[in-house]
């Protein structure tokens, strides 16, 4: 969402109020986060066309998945693992673009490790334990080529 006064005015006219980086509406209860105006340099967006013909920009799901993967790899965020897996299962995901972007961002190894572990758990039919998730995050982090 553009962080410009005109956008704020439209939201406020609709009844939204701002609290830091989130916008709130009381009835119906709606909350959304607007952390910045523009996607990262290498990110891309798709368009969602409403029945009225209006078009809304939406970050491509492959880029959303890689941002969540970065959170897991860089900061060890456990819930980011689950969010990444949800996004990797999105029917609209472009697998070829995901893999190309992951290679470019040096996230191909963490991605492979995550998907391998998830497949193994699904095949075994058992959920990750907390210890297994910690080990998974460690393995993903170690596979990332941090500068020395």
């Amino acid at each position, binding site marked *: 969402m553009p962080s410009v006064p005109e956008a704020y005015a439209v939201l406020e006219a609709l009844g939204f109020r701002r609290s*830091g980086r989130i916008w709130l509406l009381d009835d119906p209860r709606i909350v959304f986060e607007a952390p910045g105006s523009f996607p990262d340099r290498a990110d891309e967006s798709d368009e969602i066309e409403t029945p009225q013909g209006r078009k809304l920009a939406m970050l491509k799901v492959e880029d959303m998945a890689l941002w969540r993967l970065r959170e897991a790899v860089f900061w060890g965020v456990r819930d980011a693992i689950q969010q990444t897996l949800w996004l990797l299962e999105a029917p609209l995901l472009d697998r070829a673009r995901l893999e190309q972007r992951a290679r470019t961002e040096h996230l191909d190894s963490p991605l492979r490790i995550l998907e391998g572990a998830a497949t193994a758990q699904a095949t075994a039919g058992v959920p990750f334990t907390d210890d297994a998730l910690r080990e998974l995050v460690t393995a993903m982090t170690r596979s990332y080529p941090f500068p020395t």
Partner: protein
Amino acid sequence: MKRTITAEAWRAQRAEAARRSEAVDRIMPSYERTRPRDAAEADALRRQGIAEELIGPPRAPDGS
């Protein structure tokens, strides 16, 4: 390349998306946000009725 997805196409994939998300949930613990959040933002979300597991822990005074 930018794709244009109609609202109808978006709605049409929701059932499949939900089915796949449930498969992910079967191999994960119950979802709980672990990233810290500023107190003011947490309070605003709480007043909106957002569940505690989606709000996450408070951020420490040193920002960590």
